[in-house]
């Protein structure tokens, strides 16, 4: 074990693999020294485990109804009680983690590359390309995100895919801004000039040499944005524009519990705790990542 550690922490790595693994190890151990980041990472691990092993973790079916047992309060049998159709809320929350995980992953996978590309191209070429692309980015940045997402879903039609598209459309400009700022700082540096002199095309420079350097700040930002994405998705679900019944989406579950909030409080509150826990997890992890990967910005938030 200690031999592996020494190899990882070697001051003069003999291969590129050793160097990058060593860097990853240093970041990882720095992250592990931050208790909040560990808590955040744990929450996210739990979320992923819940999503992957939902059928084994959930004690009941997520959609199976039991009308004789409607609106039962939390008990040993139903840890979070049952909803208006007798479905076990805990099981639905467990299955709902799949939907939440899918939404945040899809939004990140769609919006981060778009933003990165726009920002890198804008910063790398400069001039009119930069002005036009950043003009568009700024217009999107000045829009109210939630309202825009609502309007897009209204046009595309309710549903989980359209909700993902609508959120992704409103999420990319921030990443474009970050990528552009990063690109400008090293656009004129020697290693870029060296690659250019070797005859590399602009596409190659951007994809192989510019984008990887923008990755760490984008990862931090995406992690911090996750909470916002989860809340927006839950909000769309709450308004009936996101995931449709009987899908156990947390926002839609809160919406269906709305009518019982005064007497059967558990129907609406329990999924809310799940949302808060996961959002907090991403916030903690994002804060920790920022401290480790980007020490300049400490205390910035």
């Amino acid at each position, binding site marked *: 074990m200690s031999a592996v550690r020494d190899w990882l922490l070697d001051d003069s790595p003999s291969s590129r693999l050793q160097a990058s693994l060593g860097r990853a190890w240093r970041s990882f151990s720095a992250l592990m020294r931050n208790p909040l980041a560990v808590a955040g990472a744990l929450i996210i691990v739990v979320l992923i485990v819940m999503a992957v092993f939902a059928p084994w973790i959930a004690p009941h079916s997520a959609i199976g109804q039991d009308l004789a047992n409607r609106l039962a309060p939390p008990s040993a049998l139903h840890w979070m009680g049952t909803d208006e159709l007798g479905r076990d809320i805990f099981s639905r929350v467990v299955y709902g983690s799949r939907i939440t995980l899918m939404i945040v992953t899809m939004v990140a996978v769609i919006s981060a590359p778009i933003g990165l590309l726009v920002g890198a191209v804008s910063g790398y070429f400069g001039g009119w390309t930069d002005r036009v692309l950043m003009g568009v980015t700024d217009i999107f940045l000045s829009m109210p995100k939630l309202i825009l997402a609502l309007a897009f879903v209204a046009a595309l039609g309710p549903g989980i895919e359209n909700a993902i598209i609508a959120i992704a459309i409103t999420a990319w400009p921030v990443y474009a801004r970050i990528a552009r700022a990063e690109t400008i700082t090293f656009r004129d540096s020697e290693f870029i000039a060296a690659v250019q002199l070797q005859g590399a095309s602009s596409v190659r420079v951007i994809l192989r040499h510019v984008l990887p350097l923008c990755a760490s700040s984008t990862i931090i930002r995406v992690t911090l944005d996750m909470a916002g994405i989860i809340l927006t998705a839950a909000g769309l679900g709450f308004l009936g524009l996101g995931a449709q019944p009987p899908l156990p989406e947390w926002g839609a579950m809160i919406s269906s519990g709305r009518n019982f909030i*005064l007497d059967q409080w558990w129907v609406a509150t329990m999924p809310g705790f799940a*949302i*808060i826990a996961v959002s907090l997890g991403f916030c903690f992890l994002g804060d920790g990542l920022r401290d480790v990967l980007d020490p300049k910005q400490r205390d910035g938030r």
Partner: protein
Amino acid sequence: MAFEPSPADSSARMSAGVMAGQAARGVAGIARFVLVVAATFLGLLAITFFIGRVVPIDPVLAVVGDRATAAVYEAARERMGLDRPLLVQFFSYVGDVLTGNLGQSISTGRAVVDDLGRFFPATLEMATVGILIGVALGVPMGVTAARRQGSWADQVIRVLGLLGYSVPAFWLGLVGLAVFYAGLGWVAGPGRIDIFYEGLVEPVTGIYLIDSLMAGEWEVFWNAASHLLLPASILGFFSLAYIARMTRSFMLDQLSQEYVTTARVKGVPERRVIWRHAFYPIRIQLITVIGLSYASLLEGSVMIETVFSWPGIGRYLTVALLNADMNAVLGATLVIGSVFILINKVSDVLYRILDPRARR
């Protein structure tokens, strides 16, 4: 919560925004400001126009029905101007919006502009009271947290700030209703006012608190206030979380400056060091933060209004969404978007005018 500006947004805006130059360049600065705002509005219009076009419902079919012959369909299409080039259609749309023609709402049967005018004061009232609560509590909390960095007060404020990021507003609204309305009975329930007070006061501004005060109807005033308290406090909580966090970080910056140490060494009382020396310079940054926060409260009121059946623009928007009432949806989007953009840009420019460092 989703409806707060992120640090990246504000820095982005600062770099791209208007440079209000020195006196000589002042006019050019104003011209550029107007240009940027106009371009942003045009962008908003382009987006709403695009959304209006991608709606899968064919507007012609909605008029003529799906049994119409091709000739009738074409005639209707021409009459509605949908056969013209997209760009021409866009300019006629911009013209319509500028002259206040946002179309009819199919669910209320009135012109969308009139609807929006009736619903806007309710949203304004709630967001304004919300931001007042947020500022009144958030600024002192941020200052306290910065003074006693690492103390329990700092930790509490940190946790509140993180909760502001992770609690769904609609959920907090529901829980608030269950606890403070149904459980404790401290506040009135959903809606703006009890039914038997409705129509007692002549609507002048549309803001019930002001209208009832002007009419001298104290009973109406207190009833409206008790309806307003909970939703406004919940909105205020989200702005409080953001304002406190930003105040804390600005104050920490100032407190680490050498002139603060100098003041302390000279024996200036701590109170004066905090409020006069450290707080005074950050008030300009705070204006920007409060402006951004206010704008995002207008946006955040969509969820809160839905939960509290508050007859504002947000609820109008969500009702229209569910009825696929596109004219109303786009109209409400335009109004909220425009106010949002305007507050953002104005607080940005205020910052540049007020802060001597940003004038360069």
